[in-house]
């Protein structure tokens, strides 16, 4: 990922992180954990893929906005630590199911995000 480790970059990522964490908190208050954690991870992975593949195929998202939304917002909206701690509190079968669901569905979400961008880029031609 783009690493502009200036104060400016930190501020841009921090601002995205502010809103991403609030959005995650709101989503999980609507859909209780661990399903809420799965939801933020899947939605966030789809949107991150849309942003990153836009750069590759279309290029309408400016790099600063991609930093704020991709690294800041989506990075904070999704979470690995909560997923790991929640999984450790489950019984073996449920834990395995939770791992397969989070990894499998986020990978499918990235695939669909890329597909969406490729579709848009072909529409635009």
């Amino acid at each position, binding site marked *: *990922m783009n*690493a502009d*480790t200036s104060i400016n*970059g*930190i501020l841009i*990522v*921090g*601002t*995205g*992180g*502010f*809103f*991403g*964490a*609030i959005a*995650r*908190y709101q989503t999980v208050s609507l859909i209780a954990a661990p399903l809420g954690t799965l939801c*933020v*991870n899947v939605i*966030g*992975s789809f*949107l*991150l*893929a849309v942003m*990153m593949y836009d750069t590759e195929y279309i290029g309408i998202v400016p790099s600063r906005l991609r930093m704020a939304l991709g*690294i*800041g917002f*989506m*990075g*904070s*909206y*999704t*979470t*690995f*630590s*909560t*997923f*790991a*701690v929640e*999984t*450790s509190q489950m019984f073996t079968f449920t834990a395995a199911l939770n*791992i397969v669901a*989070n*990894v499998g569905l*986020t*990978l499918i*979400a*990235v*695939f669909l995000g*890329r597909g969406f961008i490729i579709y848009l880029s072909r529409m635009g031609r």
Partner: protein
Amino acid sequence: MAIMDLLLVGIGGAIGASLRFLVSGLSPEMRGLPTGTLLVNIIGSTVLSLITFSTLNPNIHLVNIGILGSFTTFSTFAFESFRFLGQNNPQEFLANIILNLTLCITGVTIGHILANLI
């Protein structure tokens, strides 16, 4: 205070995201694997476990949900793993997933053990 809780989650999120940006940027790349994301995920999972299972009682909105929730990331992990498939690198794809899962869950176990010692 719902508004206050939201604000604390947001401030924690800004701190967590900035720290993730800094720490993952400092991490050297090894064997082409995205070790920055791996490193923040291991640290964040270990510390969250330590705090969750200990008698330490930080502000849950600021520290647990805000800072530690935002310091780690699943979307970048999924994106970086998927990219290996596109590059026809099934070994790196599997290695990245297995390393994140096993090391973060090991971190949670270590955090839990440390929590019991405090």
